[in-house]
């Protein structure tokens, strides 16, 4: 192990970068979300549509805010503030977590099995 970086290192880095890029692309193509699901301890605490006027809800001292059809964690009393730094969520699959407070905010799209239209 003489060299700082070996050829296999390069392969690992390249593969990891490609994996990351692919995941990013997949997320970029993800469709616009429809529903915001707030969970506490894994149980659904509140579900509300992504689109709508200003709205705020506090679950276990995590402040979740809907603004301009985006949702973000505005504040939390936790140490790491990972949830706050998760930024604004709007696409299906986007999520913010406050692990210390056991609160999650997830964006769900139209369910894969929900129909494209209804006949009645």
């Amino acid at each position, binding site marked *: *192990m003489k*060299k*700082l*970086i*070996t*050829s*296999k*290192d390069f*392969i*690992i*880095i390249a593969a*990891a*970068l490609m*994996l*990351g890029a692919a*995941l*990013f692309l*997949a*997320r970029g193509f993800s469709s616009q979300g429809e529903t915001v699901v707030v*969970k506490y*301890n*894994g*149980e659904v605490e509140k579900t509300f549509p992504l689109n709508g006027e200003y709205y705020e809800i506090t679950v276990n001292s995590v402040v979740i805010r809907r603004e301009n059809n985006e949702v973000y964690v505005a504040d939390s009393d936790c*140490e*790491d*503030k*990972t*949830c706050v*730094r*998760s*930024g604004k969520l709007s696409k299906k*699959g*986007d*999520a*913010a*977590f406050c*692990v*210390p407070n*056991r609160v*999650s905010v*997830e964006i769900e799209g139209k369910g894969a099995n929900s129909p494209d239209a209804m006949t009645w």
Partner: protein
Amino acid sequence: MTALLCAAALALSFAESALPSAAFMLPGSKPGLSNTAVMFAALSLGWAQTFMIVAAKAVFALITRGAAAALMSLCGGVLSALCMLLLFKKAKGVGCIGTGVLSALCHNAGQLAAAAALMKSGAVAGYAPVLVLVSVVTGIVTGSVLKAALPYFSKIIKAKEMEK
């Protein structure tokens, strides 16, 4: 020696947490400098010592950041330590940086898995894209740091052995 590395790992963890979080805008991303200590253990010491450091980090996280952080630290730590040990002992031609990247990936994967279990939600996968890219960067950093620090660590080890 293990105690020394533990101390180093904890010091690095502490230093990291003291850094202003605004400097790292990405969610859940940390430079993971304390992993250098774990990597060194995996490289120069044995399995037992490596996992002791991982456990020490988890206890430190438990004291400073609570049970959830501890579990995440433990899951990530164990997975990345396994990865390092296997790479250093079995794989040929993978250098410090490659090991750093792969173990960082494992660390984050372990943390995500722990978070998913804690939150009872699979949606944590939403963090995966960011974390993969962050892992590459932090992996390169920790790998390089280890490489740079290796001679000094080795000296200490030799000195210790001399004492005996």
